């Protein structure tokens, strides 16, 4: 961190820059929010400050939350993201521990790591067709469980990479001591190592939830009615509703709020997560 002092002019310029950057980042959120509480007539006027420039209303929020399709979509999105995140973190934690604490030969540890990472390289559109055909065959089309399975697959690299780093950072002596005391490998894992990575584990789980909440391509391809989650609802919305700014506002907020709140909760681990462990923020 450079601490060389700035001239007053530089200080002002820098502050201005920060203000612009923050305004640019926050504008869409505010735009969605402000439209969601405007009466339809007010959405056609450039007014920005509730109570001062216009009288806000919660009618659209109420209407949307009373719509059965929206409630179902919110429920589906919740099941999909909790299910997929839990499944991938469970599978991923075990694999992460294996990569951190055991040495494999032919193929070796770094092969497995690369292999898990390569999952992120593959464009999902490559496998969406086979998934569609397979799910049709096993009658899992339009089922939230199909999406739980697929999202878990594509999330798997995150828990594997992030948690194997965390296990490596733990002093191995603790586990060795418990092994000497007669604990089995499994006990050493569950009673000693696992409790120590709980903060990272929870953060990874939250990040995974946010990712699968946002997932769109698989959801669009594999749902048609009862399993439709929020992102698919929103993608088809302008055709049924026309462009009604107030509904766009509410639906955007309903879709974006959960993952952005998750992201804030897991903030400390976001950089690590998004760079797949290469950079620690």
């Amino acid at each position, binding site marked *: *961190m450079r601490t060389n002092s700035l001239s007053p002019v530089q200080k002002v310029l820098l502050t201005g820059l920060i203000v612009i950057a923050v305004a640019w980042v926050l504008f869409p959120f505010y735009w969605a929010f402000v439209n969601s509480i405007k009466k339809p007539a007010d959405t056609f006027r450039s007014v920005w400050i509730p109570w001062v420039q216009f009288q806000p209303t919660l009618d659209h929020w109420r209407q949307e939350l009373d719509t059965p399709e929206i409630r179902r979509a919110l429920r589906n999105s919740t099941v999909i993201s909790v299910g997929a995140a839990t499944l991938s973190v469970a599978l991923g934690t*075990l694999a992460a521990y294996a990569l951190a604490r055991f*040495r494999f030969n032919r193929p070796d540890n770094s092969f497995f790591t690369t292999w898990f990472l390569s999952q992120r390289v593959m464009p999902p559109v*490559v496998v969406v067709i086979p998934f569609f055909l397979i799910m049709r065959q096993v009658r899992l089309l339009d089922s939230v469980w199909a999406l739980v399975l697929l999202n878990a697959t594509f999330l798997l690299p995150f828990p594997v990479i992030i948690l194997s780093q965390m296990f490596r950072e733990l002093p191995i002596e603790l586990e060795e001591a418990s092994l000497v005391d007669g604990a089995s490998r499994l006990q050493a894992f569950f009673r000693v190592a696992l409790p120590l990575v709980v903060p990272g584990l929870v953060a990874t789980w939250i990040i995974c939830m946010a990712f699968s909440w946002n997932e769109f391509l698989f959801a669009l391809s594999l749902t048609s009615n009862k399993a439709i989650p929020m992102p698919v609802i929103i993608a088809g919305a302008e055709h049924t509703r026309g462009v009604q700014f107030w509904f766009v506002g509410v639906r955007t907020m309903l879709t974006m709020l959960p993952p952005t709140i998750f992201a804030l909760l897991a903030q400390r681990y976001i950089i690590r997560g998004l760079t797949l462990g290469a950079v620690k923020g």
Partner: protein
Amino acid sequence: MSAQLDSPPPAAIEPVTPRVRKDRTGAWFLAPAVVWIILFTIFPLLFALYNSFYSFRFGQRNQFVGLDNFGRLFTDPNLRNGLQVTLWFVLVTVTVEMLVGFGLALLLNREMQGKNILRAIMVLPLFATPVAMGYLGITIFFETNGPINDTIRALGGQGIPWLSSPKWAPVSMMILEVWQWTPFVFLVSLAGLQGLPQDVYEAAEVDGASGRQLFRSITMPLMAPTLWLILLLRMIEAFKVFDIPTSLTSGGPGRATEVYSLFTYRTALRFFDHGYAAAQGFLLLFIVMFIVTILYGRISELYE
């Protein structure tokens, strides 16, 4: 460098950990995830490969056509369009994100108040549902009374046909992508900058190096691996683009924003031409793998 390649890599490069004796338990920890990936990635990939040798009618496998589906890749003008749109998208968005994100990180890499709040704000776009951003974009870029055109008109300009013109629609989708991912470049470069060793700077400053010299001969070389890594990650993700153009413009007007993934999606699930769609998928996979291999080679060189 070549001398290093001849001998086996020194032990220090190996993963630091495994001090525990070898036993079979490790395989049991690893097996579930490995089986899972084989089942849900390798198997579907092989299935896609199998399908790519067949023609489909009404979504049903029809007859073996050999490499015909791959041959069609080279003559299909719509596929070329999808490829072009995607390549421009990747080129423009990743360049802008890298320049602005890293530039901002350089400027803000200093002691200041409110750093944590700034970081929290910058995290928000990364997890704003992309498909919802595209949907919201319909109103932001709304041509008659959207906020952008309203502002332009208030300043005396003319409204821009953000979504109805084939020239501007790609720009609109790129703006949304840049909005979403520049903060990522910013946050990761900032983390990288703050991890640089301070004593090197101090030593150079004592020796009377200028700010520009510090940047050229310390910051850039030390940051290079991180920057290449960010570039790699952003390119991989940008090639997959699907959500924003789908909800913002549905690929239109015409095919102006019909990115590769959207075109393949339509081939498969609107026209049910699964064989051809599989071939398209493999072409995209090949392109991305090609780029990853080149960049990855560069990165591992730098990390050594």
